[in-house]
């Protein structure tokens, strides 16, 4: 559901996210070595690469968990390189995590309620009950991921697959322009993966998706474009089938 206010309604027909020459060093190790890429508004972009290629590190830089060593991150025409993660979330950026990262002691409904609440800065409204709009948002987010029946269950009692669905509901309830999905299908059964694929595919087209995933079927079913990361560098970027047949990509995966 797109935001109603005018700042949110603005369109960025070119790139919603642009990374310029991002470097990230951990001590002497370069996890990212000059990554540049641009994601179009509304695009579904897959980010792939062998283990240790720097995919999750890149996510952590984009969402603000980690600062880059050098380079710039431009989101919706704004330089967010030094912005803390909660400010990026306020700009409409949401993410899910590789491992389930929920408020396990709270109920499903309360998990989503936290995400949907309009006042996240400890103002007076932080003491108010959710209003009608927030309630609608919670209900819609739960319905979209198919968790409305489990709404009163504590999050810790959900199955693994359901917890991943709740991750998505939390992301949706922040009314994002863009969601970073870190291996959404990791550890899921084939049936659960199918259900998840359906949920992601049915997401509104005005939410840009950046997906890290290993499941190639899922990527080819969802992605408009694929970016391949290898040893912290982009080695290919293009349409799914072009990337699949790229010689350097084959080399990276097969190690020949």
């Amino acid at each position, binding site marked *: 559901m797109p935001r109603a206010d005018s700042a949110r309604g603005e369109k960025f027909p070119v790139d919603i996210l642009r990374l310029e020459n991002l470097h990230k060093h951990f001590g002497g190790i370069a996890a990212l070595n000059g990554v540049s890429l641009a994601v179009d508004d509304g695009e579904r972009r897959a980010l792939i690469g062998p283990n240790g290629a720097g995919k999750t590190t890149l996510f952590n830089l984009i969402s603000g968990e980690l600062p880059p060593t050098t380079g710039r991150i431009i989101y919706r025409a704004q330089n967010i390189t030094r912005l803390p993660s*909660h400010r990026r*979330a306020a700009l409409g950026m949401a993410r899910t995590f590789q491992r389930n990262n929920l*408020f396990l*002691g*709270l109920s499903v409904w309360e998990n989503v309620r936290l995400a949907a609440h309009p006042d996240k800065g*400890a103002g007076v409204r*932080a003491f108010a009950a959710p209003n009608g709009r927030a309630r*609608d948002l919670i209900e819609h987010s739960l319905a979209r991921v198919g968790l409305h029946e489990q709404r*009163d269950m504590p999050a810790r009692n959900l199955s693994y697959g359901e917890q991943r669905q709740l991750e998505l509901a939390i992301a949706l309830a922040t009314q994002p322009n863009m969601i970073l999905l870190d291996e959404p299908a990791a550890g899921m059964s084939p049936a659960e993966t199918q259900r998840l694929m359906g949920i992601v595919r049915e997401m509104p087209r005005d939410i840009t998706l950046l997906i890290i995933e290993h499941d190639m079927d899922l990527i080819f079913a969802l992605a408009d474009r694929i970016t391949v990361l290898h040893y912290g560098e982009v080695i290919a970027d293009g349409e799914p089938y072009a990337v699949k047949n790229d010689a350097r990509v084959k080399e990276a995966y097969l190690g020949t």
Partner: protein
Amino acid sequence: MSSRRLLSFTLALAILILLIALPAFASTFIVKTLTEVLIFGILAMSLDLLLGYTGLVSFGHAAFFGMGAYATGYLAKNLSPNIVVVMPLALLIVAAAALVIGFFSIRVSGVYFLMLTLAFGQMIYALAERWTDVTGGSNGLSSLPRPLIELGSARIEFDDVNARYFLVLAFFLLSYAALWWMVHAQFGRVLIGIRENEPRLRAIGYNTSRFKLLAFVIAGVFAGVAGALYAGFNRFVSTSDVYWTQSGQVLIMVVIGGAGTLLGPVLGAGMILILQNIISSATERWQTIMGLLFIGFVFAARNGVMGLLKQIFQISNFKFQIVKPKSESEVSNLKSKI
């Protein structure tokens, strides 16, 4: 109203009536002890906002209790014993101090937060020892005037034990209601969210530092309320009230009573103070016995008295309601709205 809610409502009403009627038949000793329990109940509840709800182990909470007590005592002696004048001023001082101490303390977490709050607490203790003009130093602040309320032509003096008991009871009920409302509002859910998973909360857009600071100041102010009441009840404030052992004792009250609940810390305060009074009249080794009790709770009943009560009455925190599944059309209708 479900039968369980009816039961807890009836129980709460019965306890309230008992508390109000108590001075009519109980001895002065019991009324005095209960007054003390209610004061420390407020203090323990306020600490639990940090410890049980937000997951911040503060080891310097006596600082705010002590500041509330010293400020009230000093102002009562030098300005006016009128609570309406003195209490807001004292709480303002406590809030300002909590804002400064909190500003630095919430920047770190875990054991560093504990050490920093302990260090700030001991700084306040050192200040109380040295600033003899205001605090009386190691002699303490003694022979404080009896508290009174003067508002326009209305004047209530709290001269006897029962009157002071009712004053404390009123403040206790107000504090309990205010804290209950806070932890059940969105604010309280955010605090629990910080305890459960702070990075995730930041990732969905929460400025968690500001929530932690706000919780710290609120907890400090309610500790100040307890301190102010203590000054009026005890009519003597000494440096031992701001010493770190006082902070430790409140922590023990919260843990024994049950962190993460409001009633638990009150029960913990009651248990410790009553046992302390009973055991210390029988043996000088009461602290050994309290220590053993604490160890027993940490090993066998980590959720404290409240956890035990919940087990006994099978009251679980969550309602496992069976929700009628929505029909297919309802679901697709909801989906299309997004």
